[in-house]
Structure formats: structure tokens, C-alpha cells
């Protein structure tokens, strides 16, 4: 295979990971809302944990995006 083509295909494959992280972030916020609507008084106390979970989950998508960018621009 042409190495340049392989590079672009690899970058596209790596970007699939961002979609997986999207599932994770959606699950996170969905479940948060689920709980928040059942017990609205507990929302404020858990907001920090929500943001923490968001950052940790989103980081995995960023890893995938990073590999994609490295393939596109650095190699």
C-alpha cells in the first residue's frame, strides 16, 4: 500500500476512538441527569464529580485524536 494512503487511513481509524469517548461522555451526562431529576437537592454536591468524570472520560477521546493528529502532521 502507498505509505501516504496508509497514513491517512490510520488517522481515520484512530479518530474512531473519539466516537467511543462520545458514547462515554453521553452515558456520563445521561446518568447524571437521570439521578439529578430523581433527587434535585443532591445536584450541587455532585457537580465536581461530574466535571471530574467528564475530564477523565474526555481525555481518552483526546488520546485517540492525538494519535490521529500525530499521524496526519508529525509523521
Amino acid at each position, binding site marked *: 500500500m502507498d505509505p501516504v494512503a496508509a497514513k491517512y487511513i490510520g488517522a481515520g481509524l484512530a479518530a474512531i476512538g473519539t466516537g467511543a469517548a462520545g458514547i462515554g461522555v453521553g452515558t456520563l451526562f445521561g446518568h447524571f441527569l437521570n439521578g439529578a431529576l430523581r433527587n434535585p437537592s443532591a445536584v450541587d454536591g455532585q457537580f465536581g464529580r461530574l466535571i471530574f468524570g467528564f475530564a477523565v472520560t474526555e481525555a481518552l477521546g483526546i488520546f485517540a485524536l*492525538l494519535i490521529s*493528529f500525530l499521524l496526519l502532521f508529525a509523521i
Partner: protein
Amino acid sequence: MATESAPAINPIEQFSIHPVIPIHIGHYDFSLTNSGLYMLLAVALSCLVAAIGARGAAGVPGRMQAMAEMSYEFVAGMVRSATGEAGMRFFPFVFSLFFFILLCNLVGLIPFSFTVTSQIVITAALALMVFLAVVIIGVAEHGTDFFKLFVPSGVPIYILPLVVAIEVISFLSRPLSHSVRLFANMLAGHITLNVFGGFVVMLLGASAIFKGLAILPFAMTIGLYALELLVAFLQAYVFVMLTCMYLNDALHPGGH
């Protein structure tokens, strides 16, 4: 065939390190690079904010004093909730770490500046410092009891070897995920901003029909910039939060 010659945009050029003040001693290169310069800038800024905030502390705080007090309370609350009163000894370390990373991230968002935390060598050094501190504090405080960290209580004996192996691997991989999380977020965020900025330049350089479309990536750049401001704060927070959780492991091994 595209006839326009769009200027070549290299999104990773912004991360190149070059010397600002070349200093050579013997065979060694001690040059002050742009990376070092922006680190000094972040340290100077954090000292300045703290110094102005603490100057002439009044009963009714002014704006700077309120900011300094709120940031103190914010980090102190985080350390206290994650490690308990025993961890407050490490509050100055955690506070400095938080403000160093936060200001490096924020200074990096100023156009044409340099993001120190987008260099893996910087984040890896910070993460390894935390990792070694955790091991040294844990062994100094608890001796061999520290290794109870790898042996969770209440696990059936026949799966214990597997659990211990997993715990050891997860402990050893901490500095890796700790450093790469901050580094990758900063790097990917800045590359994304640069790529979308590049789209604006490309569309403006294209034929008249496409010039109007340049507003779309421009709006996207503004949105991404707002997201990056959030990420700059969040990643500093997450880095320090994980540091607190690791310090908690050193202070209370076997507590989980």
C-alpha cells in the same frame, strides 16, 4: 485541479522549542528556551497574583484579595476532602502545582505564545515527581505496610495473585496516564485550534464563492477557544485532584 496556492500551514510548528538566550557552558547547552521563558512567566504571574492578593490584607477583601482567598479555599477544600487533615501538610505543594499548571495552560492560550504543558517532558517530570513523592512518603510513613496498597482486603485467596498483579500494574502505569492526560489535552486542543484557523486562511485564499464560507470555521474557532479555556482549567484541576488521590494512597494505604 486547485489553482490557488494556500499558504502551507503546519499545525505542530507552534510546539517547536528554540533558544531565546543561548548559554553554553562546556559541552552542555543551558540556553534559556521559549519553554523555559514561559515557565518563568507562569511562576512570576502566580507569585504576582498571590503577592498582590496578600498585600495589606483587609477585613473586607478587595478584588485581588478575594480572588487569592477563593483560590486558596478551593485548593484547600480539595486537599481536605481527598486526603483528610493528614494531607494538609502537602497543601503548599498541591497549591503550587495547581497554579503552575493552570497558568501554563492559560498563558498558552494567548495567541502566538507557547504552551509549556504541551511538552510531554514537562508533564512527565511533574507526574514522576508526584509518583516518587507518593512512594517515598508512603514508605517513610508506613514502612512495609505501604505495600498493603496492592493487597485489597476481603478478596478471596484464589484470585488474590491476579488482583495483586493488576493493582501493581495499575500503580506503575499511573505516571504514564497522569502525564499523558494533561499533555494530550493541551496538544490536541492547540492543534485543533490551529487546524480550524488554517481553514479560515485557506477559504479566504480561495475563489470569491468560498470567501463567505470562511465565517463557519471562524465561528468554530471561537467555540473551540471557549472549550479550551474550560479544558485549561479542568485539566489543571484533574491533575491536582489525581495528585491528591495518590497522596491519599500514600497516607492511608489499604484504606480502600
